[in-house]
């Protein structure tokens, strides 16, 4: 992510409070994610006007309205494409993309894969509740087989996508999973994700208390095991990360699965940006250059 510059004023939690309060259902996992993002920004002391929070559409995509940073509440599934444009136009900005599992892995699946392989320098947080909430309870790409919803009342027969394995295969350079019931742990992952130079993917179990009665806080709590507690686990080992990503059941790993720092970011790999962010370069094309462009045609 962008270099953290000294804040002109000390940032406190109140500075990051949005213009309105969240309209999420009481008990929604997304509250925990919002608080963790605000906390991470305070701990990192990134000036809030240097941060852009970008979302798609869905319950969790209302996120930018609830935090006092620059925000874009875009189209369903398109947040990562928009965010890529923002980052390439002004790579000094810290870009945080937020959304849900339907937004990111369903309608936005194509952009998810391609933004990862491009190593766009941003943090992508998916508030994964394994259900479509804002449309009142349909099967999502991460709903488990057998789960009954309004769109699959006799139980889901389709295998879910595995976001962590998919991110590993697509070339994301920072991959982690959090749980909104583990605030401190989640805040730490968000901080690492913002600081990582490249595409940071953070899948967060963010239970839907209204429509998902299978994957609840109570269901997750005994199952989640922090990778950080296993001193033998090496997040630089891609194969080990892939193996861990397949675990689901009595034990579900959370924490940092994978990180590599040797891949250039998209904006870092493009010499056009050597002179600094595009947005600060308002100079017209020098006359000798435009003359040469015309000369080529003569």
């Amino acid at each position, binding site marked *: 992510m962008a270099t953290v510059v000294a804040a002109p004023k000390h940032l406190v939690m109140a500075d990051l409070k949005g213009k309105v309060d969240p309209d999420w259902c009481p008990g929604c996992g997304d509250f925990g994610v919002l608080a963790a993002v605000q906390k991470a920004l305070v701990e990192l002391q990134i000036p809030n006007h240097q941060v852009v929070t970008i979302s798609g559409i869905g319950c969790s995509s209302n996120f930018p309205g609830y935090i006092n940073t620059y*925000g874009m509440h875009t189209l369903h599934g398109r947040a990562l*494409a928009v965010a*890529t444009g923002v980052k390439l*136009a*002004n790579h000094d900005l810290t870009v945080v993309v937020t959304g849900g599992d339907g937004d990111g892995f369903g309608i936005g699946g194509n952009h998810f894969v391609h933004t990862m392989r491009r190593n766009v320098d941003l943090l992508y947080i998916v508030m994964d509740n394994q259900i479509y909430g804002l449309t009142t309870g349909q099967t999502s790409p991460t709903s488990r087989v057998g789960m009954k919803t309004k769109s699959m009342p006799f139980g889901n027969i389709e295998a879910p996508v595995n976001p962590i394995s998919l991110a590993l295969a697509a070339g994301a350079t920072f991959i982690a999973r959090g749980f909104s019931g583990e605030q401190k742990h989640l805040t730490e992952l968000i901080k690492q994700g913002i600081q990582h130079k490249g595409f940071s993917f953070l899948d967060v179990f963010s239970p839907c208390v209204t429509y998902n009665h299978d994957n609840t806080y109570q269901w997750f709590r005994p199952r989640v095991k922090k990778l950080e507690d296993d001193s033998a686990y090496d997040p630089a080992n891609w194969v080990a990360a892939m193996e861990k990503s397949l675990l689901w059941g009595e034990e579900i790993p959370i924490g940092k699965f994978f990180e590599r720092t040797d891949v250039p970011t998209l904006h870092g790999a493009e*010499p056009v940006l050597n002179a600094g962010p595009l947005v600060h370069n308002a100079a017209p094309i020098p006359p000798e250059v435009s003359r040469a462009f015309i000369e080529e*045609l*003569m």
Partner: protein
Amino acid sequence: MKQTFAIGIGGAAGQGVATPGDIFAKIFSRRGLHLNAYNAYQSIIRGGHTFLTIRTGPEKVTNMGDRIDLLIPLNQDAMNRHLGLLTDGAACIYNADTIKPSAAAHGVQLCPLPVSKLADITRNKVAQNTLAVGAGLSMMGIGFQALEEVLAEQFKKKGEAVVAENVAIARAGYDYATSNFKPFGWPLPMTENRYAVLSGNTAMAMGGAAAGVKFYCAYPMSPSTGVLHWMAAHARKAGIMVRQVEDEIGVVNMAIGAAHAGVRSMCATSGGGFALMSEGLGMSAMMETPVVVIDCQRAGPSTGVPTKTEQGDLWQMLGAAFGDYPRVIAAPLDIGDCFKIIPEIFNLADRFQCPGIVLCDLLLSEGRLSVDPKDLDFNTMIDRGELVTSANGAPSEDGTNGAYKRYRITESGISPRAIPGVPGHIHTAATDEHDEDGVLISDEFTNPIKRRAMMEKRMRKVVGIEAAVPLPELWGPRDADVTLIGWGSTKGVIEEACEILSEQGIAANQLQIRWLVPLHGEAILDILKDARHTIIVENNYSGQFARYLRSENSYVPSGYIRKYDGEPFMPHHIVEAVKEQLSGTTKLSVPAHEIMV
């Protein structure tokens, strides 16, 4: 009638039709001659049939014309297809070893080249092409030196030996023609002028660079890909970030993201890709983030005929994205205008913070035209509108005393636009309906009063856009027997049809529409109120512009000329259709395309 000379080169894709075309184009433009080139081809990399027409002359050449003076068939198929098009005074140069002519019309000169005698065809696979170029130039009365120079440039990278070999082959063809074939009756003149020769796609890309575009992205799609190619090749020199994206949905969203962050941002596609971009245009309108999208029309529907031209996307543009929103739609009139229109539409999009659409088509995108280099002016006026790029240096006083409201309700409907990174102007831009402060009104509490106020604020920008866009004008004599109405790329061919009609005693004038939205319907009514006979000419099946005009101002013309076979109009198509309609035989003419491509 103005003097022109047209060459048709036909062959299979991969046979090297383009190279002789490029050589002729360079020689003509350096001779101070204007030219227009159109390539009829198919979606195939090797094989099929490609037919390139290059028409040149001392005055502006706006279209492919009606006549071929020199035919160069590179295979038997091309000979069979096109020899019949030649009339008195024309000539056909061909490889006598491999191609046999069929019967030619009276006065057509057949010029067989003994290719294997004149060149070592085991060494040089395209010797027949080079020989034909040399022979043709001799017959046009152009000195050999011009060709020698162009060949030296063309093969410079391959080394002196290759240059020498090609010059020798060209020379053999040139000399053979001088002693064996009759020169053309009209030796090509020379002028002091020098022109740039470029395609509409190159012109639009360069127009973008001149407009200060800093971000360009695209997904390859014919016939728009040329814009991407120019941008990619010149990105580093022009300081433009160019990206190839996974699909057109990604394209438009990425472009809007970059635009939102504060740079001028552009993308191009064709009808199918544009369909995918539709939702994104609505986002641009709702967030009030300007973006310019170029649609290079090809024959539809669906995959359609990817390599053929049509003006069939108008209603897709008019209906793109749901809901009512302000936007600008412009159709460039020729390849020079492809350059000029881009800075113009960016200024409008930036001022009014709305999407701008350029409705081009294959004919301009992939056609080539000689343009006076002075008309490719990079020193163009740039108006970024009310853009706030620093906390204390706002270009316009927003009067908020620190309480910045991104969507402040104003009389013009324009609210100062702060870009991310500016202290004190934090806000969220949303695709949901929002209030002045950017707060959503669609989720928790909807509010009919706020919704109405925001709709009216955005739509008030339309008044400003209408005032900023010039009125259409009638060209030609005030008093005419017939008024031809067209839009976009048909400008040149209609203009020439008007000239031919006038020479034949039928006074004709032309109303060519460049700005489609806003249309200025009342002004059009005013222009047409005294017209005796009006005909709408367009390259589509249903008369999309005619229907649009009628929907805007209830105007019904006397008749229609339409063409939807994938090929562009030729002047005689229009001339004959006008005569047919003036005689009262029909109100709808659909000219048949005689060239089989």
